[in-house]
């Protein structure tokens, strides 16, 4: 039986020992396409719980330069004090987050990277054919520098580390700034500063006036913050603003 910690990071409850597609984040799975398959293939080795832990730690502590924005010198320094290497790019989980009875969000369902829930059950899958808005009209990855303490933004973890709603309603993780004032909610794409704890609750960039967004067609577009309340929320759904209320998880079943 796997510890809850590993279940929480990617659905390792699907079997033991876990395979590479069962543990870690989407940033682990795309390693195959970055000519870095050796990192993913580490998951073929573990057969005991200790080896699972060690493999997870080894992978999570491996710095991947491509995941770090060159303009973010703080994140580029290396793993955080807990041994996790960082990333500057988060997948868009959708625009339909809701705050549950426990105050948690991180549960958008209509983006290309729907989180659905913390247990990943059933595991959401989205194909390109399930993007009715058209690939160029949907954003799948945006910028968010790691949190002020470099804790969140671990590239091999999932929700809030490598996946975020746009807008985000996830304020159960970070609720206040350093002065105890509440973070602005909802967390829309807006400028911020690296030492503000609230900065981790929304997409933003170290670049002035806006940030880079990856569309589903593979193109990268620099969008200004003035798009935060107009086109971007709609583009954060696979429906491109249409079909509100329908989840991609349901559509994919």
């Amino acid at each position: 039986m796997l510890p809850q910690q590993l279940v929480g990071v990617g659905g390792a409850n699907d079997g033991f020992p876990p395979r590479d597609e069962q543990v870690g984040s989407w940033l682990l799975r795309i390693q195959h396409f970055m000519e870095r398959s050796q990192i993913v293939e580490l998951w073929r080795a573990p057969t005991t719980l200790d080896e699972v832990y060690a493999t997870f730690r080894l992978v999570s502590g491996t710095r991947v330069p491509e995941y770090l924005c060159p303009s973010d010198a703080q994140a580029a320094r290396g793993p955080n004090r807990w041994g996790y290497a960082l990333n500057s790019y988060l997948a868009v989980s959708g625009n339909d987050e809701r705050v549950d009875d426990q105050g948690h969000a991180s549960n958008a369902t209509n983006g290309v990277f729907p989180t659905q829930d913390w247990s990943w059950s059933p595991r959401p899958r989205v194909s390109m054919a399930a993007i009715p808005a058209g690939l160029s009209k949907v954003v799948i990855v945006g910028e968010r520098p790691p949190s002020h303490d470099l804790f969140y933004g671990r590239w091999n973890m999932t929700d809030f580390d490598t996946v975020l709603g746009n807008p985000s309603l996830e304020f159960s993780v970070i609720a206040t700034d350093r002065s105890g004032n509440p973070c602005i909610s909802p967390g829309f794409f807006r400028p911020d500063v690296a030492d503000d704890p609230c900065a981790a609750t929304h997409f933003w960039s170290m670049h002035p006036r806006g940030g880079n967004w990856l569309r589903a067609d593979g193109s990268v577009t620099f969008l200004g913050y003035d798009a935060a309340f107009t086109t971007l929320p709609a583009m954060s759904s696979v429906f491109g603003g249409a079909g509100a209320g329908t989840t991609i998880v349901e559509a994919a079943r």
Partner: protein
Amino acid sequence: MSDGATVDGASHGPRRRVVVILAALGVAGGAIGWASRRRTPSTQVSGTVTSDGRPVVFGTVTLLAVDRRAYSASIGADGRFTVSNVPPGPVQIAVSSPDPTAPAGAMARGQQDAAAPMPSRPTAAAPGQGAGTDPVDPPPGTTIAAPLDAAPLPAEASPPRAGWFRIPGRYASPATSGLGATLEPGGNRVDLRVD
């Protein structure tokens, strides 16, 4: 001299015209700016947030306005809020009241989902030293950098705010809150019930 004066006068003529035109543009620009300000006067929204008759003592009120921008303000300990410089017209409203005691950083979920397995194991090896006692080797061509050496984290948990209680989550999004108002120029009173 007179020719020179004429020449001077002739040479100054266009300048004067330029000055006059610029002055006219300035006046017109000022008038346009004034008119623009007149068309979009500063609007202020004040009110209280209550739930079942109790004031909501912590959180934010966010207004999505006709200019497609968001305007936010904190909720005071007495449930009052004031949002300034919102353009008049219809607004959608969201009210968020997260737990004010949530740590502002590396603890909330980290204690559960990630920090636990990592600190319980030997720390990562220094660059170029592989994975130490780990039963697996680092991938060829990759290195594991040592964790950042930094001072211990300061306690960043916020002090509890007396009287806080959780409000229904649907009010956190303007898309689901059902809250809205139409703002008039000047001061507006908008009391929000989030039962």
